[in-house]
């Protein structure tokens, strides 16, 4: 075997190729002429190597590293031509390359080799012309760079991604070193601050984009971080004022992170121009104010109209009383003075006039109190409804001696109300309950409560009777003025009592509704704000 030739070739590679592991000529000189040198530098070289005949392109010699790396046996190698080591599409380039005039030693660049198992690897080839057993031959050193290439590619991709993020980000991204100098300034930052990236890189950030009155704070923050490793604005959203190249100050939202792997630290700031948002917020606030003002005006107008209506109905009701007093009075005077000469039927007719004027008198009185309710200011305080109910019952008992029903008052929680008006509510509801259950032997009235299911700030109170009840489909009519669901002969009344209840509760911000069934009874509910006072 032509060890000496190979030896000479290898040593020359070592001499001429200083990038190999052995450092230059001195080592090679020491090895020259030894058999071990062949073993060490070719046969045992950790890099795959082979020699091929430049004319036939057949492999003439191959080392152990090549056998190990490529998977072919030595014999298989020695039966192959170098083209067979290539993927097919690279063969023309290879042949062209081989045919070219070449220097003695060349770095042939990157190629692809195919292993025996079919896998294609990236290799960097260094080749050298030499004489081998009298043949014109080439020594090839193949360095597998697949992994290195992959790593480089991955790095490139990662850089490309980062760059894409920087380029495409809608927020300004500005990177700063531990001395406060700008390292990165993305296009959004350029657009927002009005500086060109090339002009600001390396310059101190504080002087460019931070308003003068905040610069000291920025410097201190940076100094604090450098000594303590913490900073007040790190990792948080902060709203600050920033400075454009034009000198204009504007509001920004800022978040800063520190790259933990870099030493000294690198700070990345994400800055969002919130001028528009602030403007929109201001606009919304202004609109809200305007809206509130309009609501206030409308409310005032409505209140005015309401008041007019109230005083109109008041004066109408009032003026109606005067002729009524006359009608009633003169009818009575007629009976008093002439009853002796009036026929029975005439007296009955006069009585009917008197009864009607009395009824109309009650209607007018109720209307007047309804209209008074609308004008009277509400004095809300914490009240105990149970106490109010007892006062209402006392008033009712004082007013008329009716058969008293079984009235049960629950443990009613306190609420916020005008106690006088709440008493009016209970008087009206209780007198209704008494009136409509008076025909029952076992008349029972329950004054109770339950939590308000739709609004926890309210309690629901109710007055329930087992009297005449009503048809549910007329439930909403109950609360209208002068609406009555029963005949006057059966149950007297003006139809104003529940309207008063509704008005009082509405003026307290509560709700009123009723449930009933003919012959079974009725329940009237209302809600009032709960009071947590004891």
């Amino acid at each position, binding site marked *: 075997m032509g060890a000496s030739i190979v030896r000479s070739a290898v040593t020359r590679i070592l001499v001429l190729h200083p990038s190999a592991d052995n450092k230059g000529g001195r080592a090679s000189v020491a090895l020259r002429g030894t058999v071990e040198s062949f073993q060490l530098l070719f046969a045992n070289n950790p890099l795959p190597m082979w020699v091929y005949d430049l004319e036939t392109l057949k492999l003439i010699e191959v080392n152990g590293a090549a056998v190990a790396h490529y998977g072919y046996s030595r014999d298989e190698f020695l039966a192959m031509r170098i083209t067979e080591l290539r993927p097919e599409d690279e063969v023309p380039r290879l042949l062209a390359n081989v045919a070219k005039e070449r220097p003695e030693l060349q770095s042939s660049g990157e190629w692809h080799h195919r292993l025996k198992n079919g896998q294609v690897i990236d290799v960097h080839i260094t080749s050298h012309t030499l004489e081998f057993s009298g043949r014109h031959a080439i020594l090839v050193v193949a360095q597998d760079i697949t992994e290195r290439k992959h790593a480089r590619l991955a790095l490139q991709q990662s850089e490309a991604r980062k760059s894409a993020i920087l380029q495409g980000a809608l927020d300004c991204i500005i990177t700063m070193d531990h001395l406060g100098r700008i390292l990165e300034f993305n296009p959004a930052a350029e657009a927002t601050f009005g500086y060109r990236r090339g002009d600001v890189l390396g310059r101190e950030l504080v002087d460019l984009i931070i308003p003068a009155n905040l610069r000291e704070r920025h410097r201190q923050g940076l100094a604090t971080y450098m000594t303590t490793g913490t900073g007040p604005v790190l990792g948080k959203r902060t709203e600050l004022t920033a400075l454009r190249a034009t000198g204009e100050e504007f509001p920004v939202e800022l978040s800063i992170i520190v790259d933990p792997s870099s030493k000294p630290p690198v700070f990345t700031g994400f800055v969002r121009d919130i001028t528009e948002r602030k403007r929109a917020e201001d606009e919304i606030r202004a609109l809200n104010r305007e809206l509130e003002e309009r609501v206030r005006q409308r409310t005032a107008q409505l209140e005015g109209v309401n008041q007019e209506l109230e005083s109109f109905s*008041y004066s109408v009701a*009032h003026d109606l*009383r*005067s002729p*009524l*007093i*006359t009608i*009633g*009075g*003169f*009818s*009575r*005077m007629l009976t008093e003075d002439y009853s002796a000469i009036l026929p029975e039927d005439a007296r009955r007719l006069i009585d009917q006039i*008197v009864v009607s*004027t*009395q009824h*109309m*008198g009650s209607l*007018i*009185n109720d209307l*007047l109190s309804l209209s*008074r309710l609308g004008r009277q200011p509400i004095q809300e305080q914490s009240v105990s409804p149970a106490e109010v109910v007892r006062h209402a019952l006392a008033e009712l008992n004082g007013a008329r001696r009716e058969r008293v029903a079984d009235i049960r008052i629950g443990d009613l929680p306190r609420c916020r109300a005008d106690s006088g008006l709440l008493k009016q509510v209970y008087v009206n509801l209780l007198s209704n309950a008494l009136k409509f259950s008076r025909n029952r032997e076992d008349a029972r009235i329950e004054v109770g409560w339950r939590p308000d299911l739709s609004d926890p700030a309210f309690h629901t109170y109710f007055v329930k009777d087992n009297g005449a009840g009503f048809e549910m489909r007329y439930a909403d009519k109950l609360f209208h003025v002068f609406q009555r669901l029963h005949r006057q002969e059966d149950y007297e009344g003006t139809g104003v009592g529940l309207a008063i209840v509704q008005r009082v509760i509405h003026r307290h911000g509560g709700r009123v509704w009723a449930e009933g069934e003919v012959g079974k009874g009725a329940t009237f509910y209302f809600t009032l704000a709960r009071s947590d006072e004891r």
Partner: protein
Amino acid sequence: MIEDPMEILLVEDNPAHAEMTVRTLRKSNVSNHIQVAQDGPEALELLFPNGRKGNGSPKLILLDLKLPRMDGIEVLQRIKADPRTKVIPVVILTSSSDEHDLKTCYALGVNSYIVKPVDFQRFSDAVRSLGLYWVLLNRLPN
């Protein structure tokens, strides 16, 4: 009637109401000497005759509030502001139950405030009892 001594001055623009009131006062024997004025100026003329021969100060003035020309509040004010008339009891007899009117009248020193009941029975009861009290029972300084 002018020659009669005036015991009660009734200021009432509604003749029907005036008739009802006068009738009740007569029937219950409170007084037969009742002078009716139909508005404020007429009432003041009766109270302050200005040199002409008047027929004395009444023991009671029944005053409606809603009157033509000069309303009852102003009449009340004049009566209570004048030393000659301020001791005369004034009872408002009105169909107004307005809280504001009520307060104003008491602030001006009214002696009673009655809302005319619609029911004639109660109306005449009210008139009778206030007549009995102020004209027959009550004593005034001479």
